[in-house]
């Protein structure tokens, strides 16, 4: 006879919430009680891919509308607008660490719709900050990179946050393998980063929604790092990596044509 206590114990077993002794006791009973085994199978069958399904719902959040309503009802104070831009006065390294910490602190299945841009940035600080931490990347940086599905979920989120159509196809680059998709923030503006490996060398593609003015593709070289950047439709774009300027420029051209 199966009672509610059995159900609870079986669910706790399935959810891995029992200690070793309790697990052993459940397994022993499952081996000798066919009724309990049948109940176990029914409970196990009800363990659907909830998280993946609800992540699809997450992508449907009407974020822009919700943000606009909240902004209209409760704008940030002027003091905070300037306080939200500390990086301008920080060294590139300090800003880079801030970005990294934020990036790592974010679970990959959790969407991170960052605050909308507070002020249009006219300078290149975010590019310097990105260059600062990308120069620290190695081949091993992405050893624990997310699986494909997590990256796809992250891309869907990022598309919403940045208002650009990011998909595995639109960000694919020949010869490069996708490693990790992250949502960061710079100066209150959402910053998406897509990291690849190019024959073992990290290459990043970043998009920031900061309202900056349109700018043509420009190439910069900082130590070993080549940085290609441009801006279009209120978004700044950047491709960077320890590769030749020509290589980085060619990758940037490909992406520029798509966004």
């Amino acid at each position, binding site marked *: 006879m199966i009672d509610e206590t059995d*159900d*609870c114990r079986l669910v706790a077993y399935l959810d891995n919430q029992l200690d070793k002794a309790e697990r052993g006791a459940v397994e022993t009973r499952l081996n000798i009680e066919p009724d309990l085994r049948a109940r176990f199978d*029914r409970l196990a069958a009800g363990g659907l891919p909830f998280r993946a399904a609800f992540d699809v719902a997450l992508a449907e959040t009407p974020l822009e509308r919700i943000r606009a309503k909240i902004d209209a*009802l409760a704008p*940030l104070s002027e003091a905070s607008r300037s*306080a939200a831009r500390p990086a301008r006065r920080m060294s590139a390294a300090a800003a880079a660490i801030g970005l990294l910490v934020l990036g790592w602190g974010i679970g990959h299945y*959790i969407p991170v719709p960052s605050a909308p841009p507070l002020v249009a940035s006219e300078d290149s600080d975010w590019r310097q900050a990105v260059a600062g931490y990308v120069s620290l990347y190695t081949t091993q940086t992405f050893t624990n990179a997310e699986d494909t599905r997590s990256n796809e979920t992250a891309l869907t989120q990022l598309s919403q946050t940045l208002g650009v159509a990011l998909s595995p196809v639109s960000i694919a680059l020949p010869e490069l393998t996708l490693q990790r998709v992250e949502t960061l923030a710079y100066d209150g503006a959402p910053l998406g980063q897509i990291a690849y490996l190019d024959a073992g060398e990290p290459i990043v593609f970043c998009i920031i929604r900061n309202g900056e003015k349109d700018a043509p593709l420009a190439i910069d070289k900082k130590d070993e790092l080549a940085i290609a950047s441009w801006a279009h439709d209120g978004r700044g774009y950047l491709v960077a990596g320890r590769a030749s300027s020509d290589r980085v420029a060619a990758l940037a051209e490909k992406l520029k044509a798509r966004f």
Partner: protein
Amino acid sequence: MASRDEIKIGLSQHLARLWRYGLALSSARDVAEDLVQATALRALERADQFQSGTRLDRWLFSILRSIWLNEVRARRIREGQGFVDPDQVLFSDGQEIETNIFAGQVLNAVHRLPEAQRETVLLVYVEGLSYSEAAEFLGTPIGTIMSRLAAARLALGKLRPADSGAASARGNAK
């Protein structure tokens, strides 16, 4: 203690999860949106009650839950809007959804569960709370968490794609 602007900036990182929680509770997109908005305003009013160093997302979730239980749900039931057709809830037919047929089926099936079960499913299986965290958040014994999850699993067990096949299951979900 946190400032209003700190809450505002932190809040913006949790809007989508709050909306999803509101959707799990209310089974209605527009209600979820209103819940997030009301939660944001309430959180900003009460910014001084938030303890820095504790989890902002949990605090926001608890505000949303309290607004739902004490204000929105009570009003909807009073006005005779307590019931929502779960098939209308999340996914209508559309190209975007075609790629996520099974996700749509899972969501719609979860939304047919009683509210307490679908809330517990969301908190434990989606948000990743442990049984004890969920019990504390909901103010219930751990046994209640387990029995809700067991009941939800028994109700949902029929939805496995292996049992039904995508096409027929989709038809049944109609």
